[in-house]
């Protein structure tokens, strides 16, 4: 049924958090390729294949984007808005993955058509659980426009 495992783009400035996601992917044997960029500008450059991300082999188009909100240079919300305003890129589901549980962030994210909003739990087991569920839902059940 699935031809190629979905490429997941992780946009995360905190290397520790990126490591956590990466470990979880490994933990749950997810075959999906995980690409990591550390700020908003890089994320846009990636999806638009600009600069260092021009090679489609090395930087394949992501099927799912995990987006932190608090990012250097270009903010996560801004990245979200730009993506969703793009007729092509707008169809890529964006899952906001952030430490902020602030309601304003939530509202703004959904206003910018975030597909999902997940708060990084402080608790280790819950974080692992979240990642597992995320994998199940977004990489298992969810259907994508190819």
């Amino acid at each position: 049924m699935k031809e190629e495992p979905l490429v997941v783009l992780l946009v995360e400035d905190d290397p520790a958090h990126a490591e956590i996601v990466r470990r979880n992917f490994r933990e749950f044997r997810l075959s999906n390729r995980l690409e990591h960029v550390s700020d908003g500008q890089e994320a846009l450059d990636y999806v638009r294949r600009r600069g260092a991300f021009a090679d489609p082999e090395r930087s394949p188009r992501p099927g799912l984007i995990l987006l932190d909100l608090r990012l250097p240079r270009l903010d996560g919300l801004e990245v979200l808005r730009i993506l969703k305003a793009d007729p092509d890129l707008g169809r890529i589901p964006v899952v906001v993955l952030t430490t902020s549980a602030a309601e304003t962030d939530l509202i703004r994210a959904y206003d910018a058509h975030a597909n999902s909003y997940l708060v990084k739990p402080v608790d280790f087991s819950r974080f692992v659980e979240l990642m597992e569920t995320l994998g199940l839902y977004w990489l298992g059940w969810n259907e994508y426009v190819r």
Partner: protein
Amino acid sequence: MSRERRQDRILLGGLLALAALLLALGAAHWRHFAAGRRAETRERLTTATALKADELEHYRRERIGDAAAFFGNANFADLTGQLERSPDAPALRRRALLWLERTRASQDYDRVYLLTPEGTELAGTPPPPLPPDRDLLPDIARALRARQPLFADLYRDRDDGRVYLAVLVPIFPPGGRPAVLVLRIDPDRHVYPYVERRHLPARSVLTLLVRREGDRAVLLSESPTQRTPPLLAGLPLSGDASVPARAARGERGILEGPDARGVPVIACVRPVRDSPWLLISQIDREEVEAPLRTRARELLLFGALVLAGAALGLGWLRRSERLRFYRERYEASLALREREEFLNAILDRLADPLCVKDEGHRWIRVNEKFCELVGRPREELIGRSDPDYLPPAQAEIFWRVDREVLETGRERANEEYLTNDATGETRFLHTKKSLYRDREGRRFVIAIGRDMTEQRRMTEELLLNRQRLELSQAIGKTGSWEYDLPTGRLWGSDGAIRLFGIDPATTDRGYLEVDRIEGRILDRERIHQALVDLVERGLPYDLEYRVLTAPGEEPRVLHSQARALRDEEGEIRRVVGVIRDVTERRRIEEALRESEAKLRRAEEIGRLGHTSVDLRTGRCVWSEELYRIFGVPPEEGPLCADAERLRRLVHPEDRESLDRQMAAALAGEGQTLEYRILRPDGEIRHATATLEVQRDEAGHPLSLFATVQDTTELKRRERELREKNAELERFTYTISHDLKSPLVTVKTFLGYLEEDLRGPDPERVLQDLRYIRTAADKMSRLLDELLEMSRAGRTLSPPTRAPFRELVREALEAVAGRLAERGVQVRVATDPTVLFGDRPRLTAIWQNLIENAAKYMGDQADPVVEIEAEGSGREKVFTVRDNGMGIDPRYRGKIFGLFEKLDPRSEGTGFGLALVRRIVEYYGGTIEVESPGEGGGSLFRFTLPGAIREEDNPEAPPPPGAEGGGAPVAGPGPEEATGGNGTDEGEGFLAKPGPEPRGASDAADPDRTVRGSRADGTGDASGAPGADPEEKAENDGREGTR
């Protein structure tokens, strides 16, 4: 007439007096004139006589001189001796004759001859020789005796009977007999002409030569009047009063008296020296006095003429007097007749009947009106009496009154009826009868009536009207009054009088003294002035005043209006007015005014204006506060009518939306409008209007009531609050994200650590621990910085003065290590500015900026940091410039955000610039950054108005070291200071009519405000990379204010 006679007498007396006066004057004048005349005559006579005498004397001296040629002449004496001796010797004779002839011819002697002492002629010329001259003998003897020449006075020659004068010269020949040379003179040729020559211009003047001979006076010259030959007329000396006689007697000078002829003369007598002669010059008195008489006649004639003239004048005066008397009498009679006619004319023109009756009740004079009333012509009535034409009852009354008047002599007035004999109509009359007594003592009754029929009817009607008026005034609490100017009488209707608290019954039918009214008026002066204005200048009289109806009572307020009534000449005669009791109304109005004032005050305090508009008529009212809100002077009036003007007062950006909101409100949807006002002076105010629309039954809007609230202050506070909220939110965010983030890391890796500890890979344990430590460190630093940040909003140490350069020096010291490590060269401008504030905080600004510059130097080989200050006063702009890696213009707005960093791999936490901005804003300043892009270096520019005091920085020309920053300053002027910390300058930006007032647009879009510093930068980034740098700068500036 006696007066006239007396007048005559006075006139006559005057004439006589005048005559006497003239006479006296004439006499005096005449006397004076005569005396003058005589004196003049005498003087002239004296002078003339003296002259003639002198002439005669002169002549005689000359003749004696002639004799000198012979007297003592030896030659002639020899010749004479020889001639005596030989009288006939022809030669001798010839010689002798030659001598004689020469003398005779030269002096025109009558004859010259030589005589012997006996009188015999020896020689003589002219021939023939004369017989011996006996008459001369005595004189010859005298000459020989005297032995000198002498005159032989005038004598008559006996031979020829003529009168001669001779000079005798004795000649004594040597040895011979003496002889005498005779030089005979004819007086007719040489003496008399002298004497007779007239010296005076008078007809009767006469000069005589007189010689005394014994007791006689002899006239030597010929008397021209009597033609008496000379020497023959003699006058006896004694007893003769004639002038010659008196002269001969020795009188000299002026003599008056008869002359030889017996004619009275005035004469002057003078003797001729060396001779027996007396010279008399005389003028007839007759001639001297002739002009005097003439003058006397003239005077008399003049006097007579004057008297005659005076008499004539007086006579004419009397005559004209008499004429006037008769003319006046004639005119008086004419005037009398005219007056009589005039009187009749007057009486006939009288609208009132008049008749005069004699004692027998007979009409002797009636006027036309009377005839008309009785209904009979005048001719018929004269001489008749009342019973002849009037009903007996009426006649009876008339007679009775007549008798009463005749008997008592008192005037009677009574009311009576009179029936017309012709028409039978009865009239009602007021008649006044009085007694008249003429000179002869006859008595008459004069009756003057007045037809009161009409008046009676009108009075009744008037009474009725008056009752109606009083009733209506009583109901309406009004009154009317009149003031008659000529009489000064004041009348008020009952209603008017009651308004003053006076009982109308106490007045004289409404007439009352002005004092009674005035005494109760409290604003007397004003009313008086208004009345004067009305009467004298025709100004309208419409005023209110207070009246004290009774002591202790509340004064009542009366409204009074009046008008002046003019007569035909336009003179103001009467003032008619109306008064109304408006106490109640005024009380209500006062209450209304008070509540209006309260409303105004409330509106002012609440900055809430209101307006009401009648949508059908377009009439509208603006409350005072509304004008203030719109910044329009109330004199302009409500602006509803001028839609265009009103529209201009709305901020251009809000006009369309306001139109929409307005239309919606009128359609019944929504009642609140929000918009900005653009005042004429350019100030922008926020306003919220609330509408209420009144509609008719069909739902059409009739009128509109709106309140307008000036919400500028509210908006400002709202914005401030939002800003504070945003700041708070940032902190919250920091807590919830930035602090949580390492916590997540720590806890998660702790979980991994547990797993990995059980696992085989010790490397993984170490990795986990590294993540945990890093996260914990980060957390710790975040907490420190958060603490510092929260402190930046407060003052830690008391403010002190610190020169700019000192602060920079301290900052440089603090970052010396990093600068040295990177080899950064620092240049500091020599600016004298002295700052006043929390010293460590101020130092932190430069410290962080310098550190930031050093940190982001990139791969610059020759790193330089320049620290400068430019501008003056509180607007001083401080700059920190570096030539490091610079900042991508897209992120310029982001760098001042808390924990924002551009480079995820850099060592900082994104705290330093946030702290700088917070400190700058604490001092009321702004901060912005300029950079041409990556690798182009960056320029931080900030102001600190709150830390610059004027007393520390006296105005001085810019110091030479403060060179400009090069790039144009994107206007961080005072208007840019948005007052993030709530200073007064917070409103400043509103005053700036920019193309897009920031605060306003922010307020209009709360969403953006909430997004705060985090969101804006990304907006810029996505917008347009090549956007206008100016606009960018402004956006950045705005960012900098958060």
